[in-house]
C-alpha cells in the first residue's frame, strides 16, 4: 500500500517537490547511464540468425496451412 501525500510530513513533501525526477522515456537513452561490462564475448551473429530462423519457420508453417486451406 502506498503512502498518500496526506500521510507524509510537511518537510518530506516539500523535499519531494524540490527533488528532480529523472524520467527515462526511451530505452536508447539508457545507454548514457548504464555501466556496461564488456567482458562477455561475441556469439551475436548466431544469436540473431536463430531468431530469424524462428520467425521464418513460423511464416513457413502459417503459409503452408494457408496454402492447404486454399487447395
Amino acid at each position, binding site marked *: *500500500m*502506498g*503512502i*498518500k*501525500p*496526506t500521510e507524509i510530513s*510537511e518537510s518530506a*513533501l*516539500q523535499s*519531494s*517537490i*524540490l*527533488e*528532480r*525526477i*529523472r*524520467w*527515462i*522515456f*526511451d*530505452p*536508447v*537513452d*539508457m*545507454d*548514457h*547511464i*548504464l555501466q*556496461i*561490462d*564488456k*567482458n*562477455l*564475448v*561475441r*556469439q*551475436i*551473429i*548466431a*544469436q*540473431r*540468425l*536463430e*531468431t*530469424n530462423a*524462428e*520467425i521464418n519457420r*513460423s511464416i513457413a508453417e502459417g503459409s503452408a496451412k494457408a496454402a492447404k486451406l486454399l487447395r
Partner: protein
Amino acid sequence: MDGDRLHAAILLDAPERRRKDAKVEIALIGYQDQGNLGLGYLAAVVERRGWAARLYDIRDDADALARELSARKPLIVGFSLIFQFFLPRYREVAQTLRAAGIDAHFTIGGHFPSLCHEELLANFPEIDSVVRYEGEETLIALGERLRCGADWRDLDGIAYQGPDGPVATQARALVTDLDSLPFPRRPDKVERIVGYPTLPVLASRGCIRRCSFCSIHTFYRTAPGRTVRVRQPEKVVEEMLELRETYDVRVFLFQDDDFPLWGKKGRRWADELIDRLHASGLSHDTIFKISCRAEYVEEELFGALKEAGLFLVYMGLESGVEDGLDVLFKQTSIEQNLQAVATLKQLGLAWNYGFMLFDPSTTFDSIRGNAAFLRRIVGDGSTAAVFSRMLPYGGTTIRDTLASEGRLRGDLTHPDYVFLDPLINDYHGLLTRAVRPWIHNRGLSYSLANSIDEVETIERLAPLASGCAEYRAELRALTAESNDRLLRLVEDSSLAFERGDPEPLDPLPIAAYCEAQLETLDALRDTFLRRNMDTLVASIRGMPAAHPVMMPQVH
C-alpha cells in the same frame, strides 16, 4: 495444461486452494525504476492464484537478497531482463543466490531472454528455464508443476538447456484479453514529479510497426496471437481511479509500446477513453503522458485528449533525414514528423522525442541534415535538444542486416557496429564524449526537458501557482540558447572533423558552459518552486483548487 484450462485455473479463487498453497512463494527480481509493470502483472497473477509474490530490485545488495531468500525459501526465483546490458548483474545476483544454497527454480523472462534464449542459456548456467514472451500464464503453469514435483519441460512457452543443447517448446499464445489480467501489483513507494505521485499504466501491448531497430514487434510477432491488444477504456479508467484512490496518483505515465490511436478504431477507442476520463472526474485533477507515433498527432483528437488530461507526448521521431528514416524502417516522413511537432506546439502540449543522430547509414552530411532538422523543431526552446546513437539490440532486424554486412561489433551485453565511413567511427567517439555534459541522465538537456515537464505539470495541476508564465519564458530562453550551442557544436565539429580538425570537440570549454547553465537553471527552478511551495503543498494534499485543471473554453 492448455491455455484455456490454465486461464480457468488462474481465475479459480477457492479459499481451500489458497490454504493448500499457503507456502508457495515466488520472488520476482528486476529493474524497479518507474514501477516495473511487467513484474507488477506477474505478481498480480501469482497473487490471484493464491500464492505470494515478492518484488526485489536487481540493484539491491546481492548478499542481503541471498539472506532474505534463504529465509523465505521461494519456490521460484523469477528474473525479468529487458536489456542485455544488465546481464552481468543478473548473473552476479544468481551466482550469489546459488552460492548461498538457494535451490529454488531460477527462471528468467523479458525481451532479450525470449528472443535470444540460446545465447542466454549458454551464458547463464544458473538459470533453469526461460519463460518466453508474455509470462503471466507460463509462470503460473510452471509453479503448478514445480509445487507438486512434476516435470515442467513440456510446458508451452519454455526454454531450457537440454543434454544436447538448448530446447525451446512451442511458444505460448499471447494473452488474448488484457482485461482478463488483474491490475498490476504496485511498488510500496511511488515516484513523484514536483511532489505529485506518479505511476505508469498500460492501455495496450504490442506495436503494429516493424521499425528495424526495435525488438518489441519481434517479441510480439514471434509468439502466436494478435500482435496488438488494447484494453477497454472502462477498465483503464477503473485502474486509474483505483490508483488515484490508493496512492493519490495525479500524474499517469502511459507506457504503451504505441498508444493505440491508429485509424478509425483507435479514434473510437480514444473518444471513449476521453468520455470516461471526464465522467469519472479524473480529467479534473489528474494528467497523463502518452508515447505514440508522429502520424497519430492530429489537432482535433489531441485537443480533446488535452482537455481530458493529456499534458505530455513522447514521440520516437528518430531521424530528420530520409536515409535515416528508411534504414530505421520508421515508415514515416520528415513532413509528418514536422507536422506533429507543429500541432503539439499549437495545442500547447509539452513534448519529448527520441532521436538517433547516428544510425548505420550515417554520413557527415546526414549528421548536418539531422542537426538542421533538430533546429527546426527545438530551435525555439520548446523542449531540449537530445540525441543518441542507434544500438543493434537483440531481436532486431537491423542487427541481422549489420551482421550480414559484416559490420556488427561488440559483445553479448554491449552490441555495436561500425559506420560505412571509418572517419565517422572516430567522430562519434569524440562527439559522444564532448556532448556528455548535455546528454546524460543529469546533463543540461535532460535537466531542461525535465524542468519544462515540471512547469507543465504545475500549470495543469496547480492553477493558482504564480509566476508560471515568467518561469516558462526563462526556461524557454535558456533551452533555446542551450540547443543552439549544442547543435552548433554538431554542425561546426562535423565540418571541421571532415577537414581533419578535431579541435571543436575539446570537452573542457563545453563542460564549463553546461555547468554554468545548469547552475542558472537550478537557481531559477529553486526560486520558482520555493515561491509556490504553499500552493503546491495544498494542491498535492488535495485541497480544493479554485479552478479545474482545464478551464472551460469560452467562444
